[in-house]
């Protein structure tokens, strides 16, 4: 259904259309919170009314990867759950983004041991890394805004 070649490749019309589609995608993210550990508490407090996530349009968590576009990997990933994380990532449809929430997902955190995956970027591609143990909600919101800027910069596929 490739609309971009139909409109003539890269020209004024497609860049405007890019901007509109990027605007609509970044302000209506459907996160899939893949929560395993303590960072889940910070995710809950970011979603609540004090540090509202709804004003960014990302309030509605979809608990199935088929309907989600943002995979929020929250909390420590051990070697046993790593294949499941990969399966969940593969089940999401394009366009999809991944946020590594918390330092355990960025680099393994302070679990430098045999059981923890030392950073989920060894398994799936990550767009934004939010460090912190757990990160302050303001940090999470800054990470989300960085992701929104990234979406705005991307060449949208349509």
């Amino acid at each position, binding site marked *: 259904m490739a609309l971009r070649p139909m409109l003539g490749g890269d020209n004024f019309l497609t860049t405007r259309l890019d901007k509109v589609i990027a605007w609509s995608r970044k302000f209506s993210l459907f996160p899939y919170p893949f929560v395993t550990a303590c960072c889940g508490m910070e995710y809950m407090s970011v979603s609540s009314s004090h540090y509202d996530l709804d004003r960014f349009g990302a309030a509605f968590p979809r608990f199935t990867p088929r309907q989600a576009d943002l995979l929020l990997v929250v909390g420590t990933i051990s*070697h046993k759950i790593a294949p499941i994380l990969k399966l969940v990532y593969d089940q999401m449809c394009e366009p999809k983004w991944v946020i590594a929430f918390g330092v355990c997902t960025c680099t393994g955190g302070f679990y*430098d*041991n*045999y059981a923890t*995956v*030392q950073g989920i970027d*060894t*398994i799936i591609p990550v767009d934004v890394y939010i460090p912190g143990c757990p990160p302050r909600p303001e940090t999470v919101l800054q990470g989300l805004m960085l992701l929104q800027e990234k979406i705005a910069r991307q060449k949208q596929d349509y």
Partner: protein
Amino acid sequence: MSSIFDPVDNKTLKAIKEKFGDAVLEAGLDKGDLVAIVTAGSLHDIIAFLRDTPELDFNMLADLFGVDYLPRKPRFEVVYSLHCIERNERIRLRVQLNEKKCEMDTVTDLYPVANWLEREAWDMFGVVFRGHPNLKRLLMYEPFDGHPLRRDYPINKRQPLIGPKN
């Protein structure tokens, strides 16, 4: 006999010493808890005796875990904690195992909870339980190489499946 434990006059320890004689290597009080060190071959019978005798009636296996005392020979120990609910009495049975011959009989037929407890001891230390219905890894994933809670396993040794190499 000069024992590493304090002597105590206790019905349970007397009963197992009298029935099993030299299978019980040491018995007594260790900082206030009843302990007995027994041989690996007799452990299943001792636990069956403790569970089935009506006066003793140890009906709960509270815990089962392994210990690694690396420079000491015998290297491994498996510790069983039994609890009698009616009399509120606990006893600890310790079995010492060599590194070469790290096997013993399972107690899953006596206490079904031992199924997962023994799987964890196998996964973390490498103690083989003969007769266990499903001796697979419990906490680590299947192709994991090694037994993590042994003392000579370096804590941040990487496994080949995911992530950076050693």
